[in-house]
């Protein structure tokens, strides 16, 4: 194909960037890992809303999931930090420059185990961030131990049975005051990409709890989050379709209120449920929906809660137009006279 033909074939977005401009380094994750599918949705969403890569910062902690910030948007700054601290890193970054758009990628170990405290406090502060927890119920990178989102009774590859209840990150986030909470499934780009688009444009903390199968350590008999590669099973299981309630500058064209039964490698089934007749601005209803899902053994997906009226951290901190990181000596160092006055006031 000639260069010209290639260029005309490749669609450009409003910034005149093609999808290629949103890709990153080649993934080093296991083939079929759910996290890679989420990366593809992130690329899609950022391209679709014409997000300027120069305004994006990619933040992560440690884990297979946290590695993925390297696999999209090469032209953006990225920081792969330490285990469980991405939320705090994001708070600092946001204070230094609140005009940037942070995309945070974390795992369930990173977020719900070691990082739960900092995650909770980030939510409370309502910093602007699109925070994605790639939830596989295990520690992928350390080879298959339970995370805090592993369901009670589930069996690890090593044979251990998990005696504890899972932390429901969506309910946790809503309880702590998150202003955007959504749930989805890595294999369902049709639902996930629009949710990401909304999250990326949300002025506040947007938490996306995305079920993401670990095909290596959580895909065996006895595991409740062992999801067979969605692609392989898609035809047999009907297209998973989800309703996006208000607000929508996001396109929705599918039926609501249906279950999607996803068959797993081991033959087990996870039931995803697309929420219907749900008012995402009603916090109580959001929590009830999650609770109903828990009772019925269904993973409720869609936009669960949104509140666009809370001020974000930069507003609460009363920061000006120019980010702190671009202020210089003139703005930051008080004058010689100011020091003279201080000295005088300290002379008794």
């Amino acid at each position: 194909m000639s260069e010209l033909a290639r260029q005309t074939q490749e669609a450009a977005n409003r910034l005149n960037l093609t999808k290629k401009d949103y890709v990153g380094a080649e993934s080093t994750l296991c083939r079929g890992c759910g996290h890679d599918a989420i990366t593809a949705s992130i690329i899609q969403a950022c391209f679709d809303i014409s997000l300027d890569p120069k305004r994006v910062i990619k933040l992560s902690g440690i884990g297979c999931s946290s590695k993925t910030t390297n696999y999209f948007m090469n032209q953006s700054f990225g920081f792969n930090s330490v285990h469980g601290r991405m939320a705090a890193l994001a708070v600092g970054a946001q204070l230094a420059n609140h005009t940037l758009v942070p995309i945070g990628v974390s795992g369930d170990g990173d977020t719900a185990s070691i990082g739960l405290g900092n995650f909770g406090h980030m939510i409370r502060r309502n910093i602007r961030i699109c925070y994605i927890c790639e939830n596989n119920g295990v520690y992928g990178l350390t080879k298959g131990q339970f995370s805090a989102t592993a369901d009670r009774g589930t069996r690890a590859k090593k044979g251990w049975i998990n005696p504890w209840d899972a932390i429901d990150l969506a309910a946790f986030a809503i309880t702590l005051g998150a202003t955007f909470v959504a749930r989805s499934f890595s294999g369902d780009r049709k639902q996930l990409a629009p949710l990401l688009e909304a999250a990326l444009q949300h002025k506040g903390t947007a938490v996306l709890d995305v079920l993401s199968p670990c095909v290596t350590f959580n895909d065996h008999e006895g595991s409740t989050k062992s999801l067979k590669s969605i692609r392989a099973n898609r035809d047999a299981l009907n297209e998973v379709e989800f309703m996006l309630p208000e607000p929508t500058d996001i396109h929705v064209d599918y039926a609501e209120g249906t279950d999607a039964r996803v068959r797993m490698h081991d033959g087990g089934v996870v039931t995803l449920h697309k929420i219907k007749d749900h008012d995402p601005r009603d916090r109580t209803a959001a929590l009830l929906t999650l609770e109903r899902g828990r009772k019925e053994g269904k993973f409720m997906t869609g936009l669960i809660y949104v509140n666009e009226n809370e001020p974000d951290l930069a507003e609460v901190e009363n920061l000006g137009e120019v980010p702190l990181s671009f202020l210089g000596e003139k703005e930051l160092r008080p004058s010689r006279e100011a020091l003279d006055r201080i000295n005088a006031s300290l002379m008794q």
Partner: protein
Amino acid sequence: MTTPARNDVNICVATKNGSGSASANAILFKSIFKMGIPCSAKNLFPSNIEGLPTWYFIRASQDGYQCRKDAIDVMVIFNDATELQDVHKVRAGGIVIHDDSKPLRAELRRAGVQYIGVPAGNLVREHIKQPQLREKQRNMVYVGALARLFGIPRGTIEAVLKDTFGNKPAVIESNLLAIDLGYKHIEATGATQSVAQLAELPGGNDGKIMIEGNAACALGAIFGGAAVVAWYPITPSSSLVEEMIARIEEYRVDEHGHRRYTILQAEDELASATMVVGAGWVGARSMTATAGPGLSLMQETIGLAYFAEVPGVFIVVQRGGPSTGLPTRTQQADISLMHQGSHGDTRHIVLIPHDMRSAFELTWKSFDLAERFQCPVFVAMDLDLGMNLYSSKPFEYPDKPFDRGKLLGVKELEAQGGKFRRYFDLDGDGIPQRTIPGTDHPAAAYFARGSGHDSDARYSEDAKVYKEQLDRLRRKYETARKWVPEPIVENGSRSGVGVISFGSSMESTREARDRLRAAGLPTDHLLLRALPLAPEVGTFVADHKEIYVVEQNRDGQMTQILRDEFPKHADRFRPVLVYDGVPIAAGQIVSLINSQRGT
């Protein structure tokens, strides 16, 4: 009777924490300062809000020593719980001031000590109408008694009250009433003493400021351009950030009323340190202040900042450890943790203030060094410096503009043809170039990480690449030797005996060296102001065969660093270690040096 010492006295006031003695002590101290007499104060307080014993030391010193004095000349015993121990802390020939509203217990009597009674309890009961004020004002009574006994003019006290309570005439009046009760009681009983007399030195403290080290650091941080402050409260560092909160708004609000700073109380030190790193990476001057336990929690992130090369200032106000240790007592025992903080091979820049001016100066400089070297920079304070009042020459305005190091903006990137290699040692000094998010240039972005990376910030597990990066980081540390504040050296004794001190040990070392000189042992001195050790330290070590290193910790943490740096001369270093949590005093240094010399 001996002739009273002129302007030389060490007064210790023993009270209960939370009884309101702090403000009485401050009035007393400021009055002596106002008389023009060189003086200093130290607060030995408990980790408690109310009820536990506290001691306040006021030292007037003709020679201007601002450190703790070993001998207590006057003891005010206003705490029943400790009075039995307290009376034994006074030197022979000293004075005990007691509340004789009830008779003095027989076992508190010591021979060779003068007892002066003031019925403070009775006086306030009779004269202060509001019962809730009585306990507090009982303390003002000893202020009045001491004033009369040692010669502090009543007018000076009144002036200090006015300075302190300015627009609250009722408060001034009620305090003055209580002070007068003590003053007039001594006058009426005709009690006198011959331990010391305070005499005004007109203009003696003119042009001097009085401040605590934490406040000096807070100002230094404001003048250093601190824009993002993330912290978690912990004694003895809290007052540093609280001082910033109180002062920064005056200088950092723009014409639209928006802040040019942010001070965020984090949920823990894991977060505060990581916020500092997040903000530093994005390009704001960022800092935190903490103490040992917080510093311990910050370790992992400090390693991240070191390896990913992110600037950030960490002010550590040291206290007694390990664990909760003695949270309200002083130590210099976190030197190793700052210098080699985090796991793996690390070495950090540590700046060590020793007085109020250097607390201000080294703090603003720490922001320049953090950006120049793209790493965490520690400011090693301690409780003694941070939470006690010192008199000082006024602060000097920064003599250098902001140094943002090798930070590239759009213009600079253009100028070098849009080429930028984040972790490449372009200049051979170990310091690479840096960009910050939000820079509107396609070449600006890079990926920071705490895992192995090459010169172009790409993930790498390659052995050679990894070692190269570790070696470059070491090169950066070597470069820093010539950038950090150089030591202050005092040579010329010709005795071959050197003393090295740093931080709050400096002032006691000065007094100790004066005493040693008077006793026939002149010494040279090197005041360490930073790690890594500057080249001047090597010269000093080469020139002295016998070097005493004064430190307030058990294991000689600085001595270990010195021995490590100068292995050939390792046996020259003789640690002088005081680590009981009480500020080091000259007498302790003198006797530890004498005992090591066998004299």
